[in-house]
């Protein structure tokens, strides 16, 4: 559960309404793999991830980024019930995908940087603070079913 004031909730949804989930998803996932190269360990089957250019133009990275960000988008509709919303995905990431939850935190912060990059002056310190709460809540929800 994330504690956002009504003002913070509208800041989050207002900005999100302008997000192109496909573009931002691909950008965030791509940048994660460029900035933190060890995260490529989960994507050996994606083909060429040998350079920043290869990663950012890789169609599988873009497609997967869109998938990930669509799930995040769903989460934004259920900020009061994140653990329930992400329960199945949490089990999947633990039991089948074996992803260290630290990666959720890394991706969350990369997403914040991508939003700052895209939205410039609209990504005020206040908007950032609301988004930090959201990405932290989503990361915790995704880690919740780990055992």
């Amino acid at each position, binding site marked *: 559960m994330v504690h956002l004031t009504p003002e913070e909730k509208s800041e989050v949804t207002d900005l999100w309404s302008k997000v192109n989930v496909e573009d931002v998803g691909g950008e965030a996932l791509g940048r994660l793999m460029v*900035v933190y190269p060890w995260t490529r360990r989960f994507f050996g089957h994606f083909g060429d991830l040998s350079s920043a250019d290869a990663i950012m133009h890789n169609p599988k990275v873009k497609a997967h980024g869109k998938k990930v960000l669509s799930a995040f988008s769903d989460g934004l509709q259920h900020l009061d019930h994140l653990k329930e919303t992400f329960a199945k995905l949490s089990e999947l990431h633990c039991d089948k995908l074996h992803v260290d939850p630290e990666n959720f935190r890394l991706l969350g912060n990369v997403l914040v940087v991508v939003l700052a990059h895209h939205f410039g002056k609209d*990504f005020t310190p206040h908007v*950032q603070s609301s988004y930090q709460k959201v990405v932290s809540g989503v990361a915790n929800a995704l880690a919740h079913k780990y055992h």
Partner: protein
Amino acid sequence: MALHAADRALVRALWRKLGSNVGVYATEALERTFLSFPSTKTYFPHLDLSPGSTQVKAHGQKVADALTLAVEHLDDLPGALSALSDLHAHELRVDPAHFKLLGHCLVVTLARHFPGDFSPAMQASLDKFLSHVISALSSKYR
């Protein structure tokens, strides 16, 4: 995670672009840190942390000067930041986990202000540079 020649070149190029405004961006990064990560405020009970505070601006300039010093001494960060490490370890006793939070907010600030210069490669080099600074700052802790 050494700083390669390409990383150094990118960071130096970005710093040339920031020119004499490093203080402005460091101040914004501090503001973002205090807002997004309220526990960081516990180290500044003696400062007025309200938006636009001249005390935060002054502190931002101090941080900026230290970062510029770091950029000028990429070959010897531990040496260049030794005195600052002593200060943070023995007098200020800031939990080193907080340095990452300010580092993140600095990356966010620069992405926001320099979108044209913020390629994935630049983001990677900046992130690496800041983690080296953090490592040098934490080196005297124990």
